[in-house]
């Protein structure tokens, strides 16, 4: 019974969002429901935070492997949450210079801004930067020019990489840029042609496919065929 009600709630919410696009008086309903969604999603973050606390506290209390790291995570989480919620060090806004809570929590000069600028951003930036090494090493091991499709992939990657660097421009700089029928052979122009023709076509077809997939999933949720979000025993992904 409770699952049926949950499916009904999801279906009605989805239909209201779709109908509000087509029925003018319902436009305000879309805004209201979107605000409810944002608020509920914000409380979902509280759920995530509570889950993080619970998991790390369990690891620390059980002295499980890596409990020191769990303690570091916990301290970092609580400290960031504390300075963010209490707007520690946030300079007052120009509009309300006498109000301590006038500025935004991540305003420049505040503690949350400091944490983002000097802790979060450098670590995440370096983690993504490090992927350059792993992507290159994985590509070196995995890419083999075994058939036409693989050759297309390799050559395109090579041309796009070279065409966006000074080295690539230099390599084909001997090809005249002002002769219409051959200038596209310069690596920087060839790279541009690949992006504007072949990649556009491939990406466009994939976007169309993804949009059809999203629309189909939406319809399945609206009519209650897809209940996978309710968890196991709810009728499975395909109803």
């Amino acid at each position, binding site marked *: 019974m*409770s*699952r049926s009600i949950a499916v009904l709630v*999801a279906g009605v*919410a*989805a239909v209201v*969002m779709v109908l509000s696009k087509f029925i003018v008086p319902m436009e305000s309903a879309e805004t209201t429901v*979107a605000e*409810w969604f*944002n*608020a*509920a*999603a914000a409380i979902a973050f*509280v*759920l995530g935070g*509570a889950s993080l606390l619970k998991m790390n506290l369990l690891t620390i209390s059980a002295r499980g*492997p*890596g409990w*020191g*790291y769990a303690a570091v*995570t916990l301290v970092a*989480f*609580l400290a960031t*949450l504390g300075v963010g*919620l209490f707007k520690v060090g946030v300079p007052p806004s120009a509009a*309300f210079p006498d109000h301590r*809570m*006038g500025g935004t*929590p991540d*305003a420049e000069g505040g503690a949350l801004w*400091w944490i983002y*600028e*000097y*802790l*979060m*951003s*450098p*670590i*995440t*930036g*370096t*983690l993504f*930067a*490090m992927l350059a090494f792993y992507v290159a090493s994985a*590509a070196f091991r995995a890419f083999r020019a075994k058939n*036409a499709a*693989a050759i*297309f992939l*390799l050559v*395109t990657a090579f*041309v796009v*990489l070279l065409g966006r660097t000074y080295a690539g421009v230099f390599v084909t700089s001997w090809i005249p840029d002002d002769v*219409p029928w051959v200038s596209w052979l310069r690596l920087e122009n060839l790279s541009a042609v690949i992006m504007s*023709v*072949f990649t556009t*076509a*491939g990406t*466009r*077809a994939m976007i169309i496919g993804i949009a059809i997939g999203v629309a189909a999933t*939406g319809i399945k949720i*609206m009519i209650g065929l897809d209940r996978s979000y309710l968890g196991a025993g709810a009728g499975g992904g395909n109803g």
Partner: protein
Amino acid sequence: MSQFPGTSGTPGAPGMPADPAVARRANRLMIAVLAVIAALLVVRAWVGTEVGSGADAQVVHGYGMVFVEQQGAGHVQVPAAEWAQAVAADPAQQRVMVSWPRTVGVWAAALLTLAVLSFLWRDNPVYKLAESVVVGVSAGYVMSTAVWSSLVNQVFGKLAPGLTKAYLSPGLTTTESDWWALVPLGLGMLLLCRLSARLSWVGMFPLAFVVGVFSGWRFVQYVESDLLAQVATMFDPLYVAGPTAAATVGGTLCAVLVLVGVLTVLAYFFFSLEHKGPVGGAARIGVWYLMITFGASFGFTVMGRIALLAARCEFLFDDWLWLIDPAGKH
């Protein structure tokens, strides 16, 4: 049980040589390299870095120092040369000064950057420490900004506008209570029931609401801006007139190639017909288009990562060590 596993560098662990002697030699070599780099940095700090030019030149003994100037209610970062100029004009000036929180921040960022990069050597406790910090900090950051942007303004601000305006958000424009805001608050409270094993079933209602709203929202967005907009571009003219014959031929050829590409890739993704005969031929051409797309995406991804790596190196050598100055910060 060790609170920081991996501190002993167990031989045979992933990334470690199997032979203990080789592992010890590798460790000693790494420590020696780090010691030499540290010694060079200490020597350079002792010698100092000259900032400013001419009569305004000043020597700074340290790295990563950030100078700020009071502007309005806060401070704004200024080049070190500006500090040198201000000190040369008035040694007792207080207008441009060192920002110790930002300087400590540059050091913290530099050490954390090196900690993450140390993973290239092998998994180690310093890397794990940085990883733990980023997990905690990210969760705290996302949660606190969500509370301020959604809960305070859209829930508390509507339920108790007077109190919220007085104590939390002076810029709030709402003046009257809107009790409909109890709905998302109630949904959120029900969502928290998922933390309890006995009451977790109650959490499925707000979850269903969130899923329903999101799917309806996305349905309209994707159909309108992706499906219809992308299909509409396929009805553009295939003949593209240009200023020259070559431009006309080139533009027309490109338009035809794009149309052929979209249709053949869609043929590849169409599984209701067996990929044989003309459909099979079209699907094969579609695969070639897809491979070119993936190759370009791969090239772009690598370029993006390398650009990020260059930015991190620039931070280390420019902001922290002051060895380069491409943006004129010093």
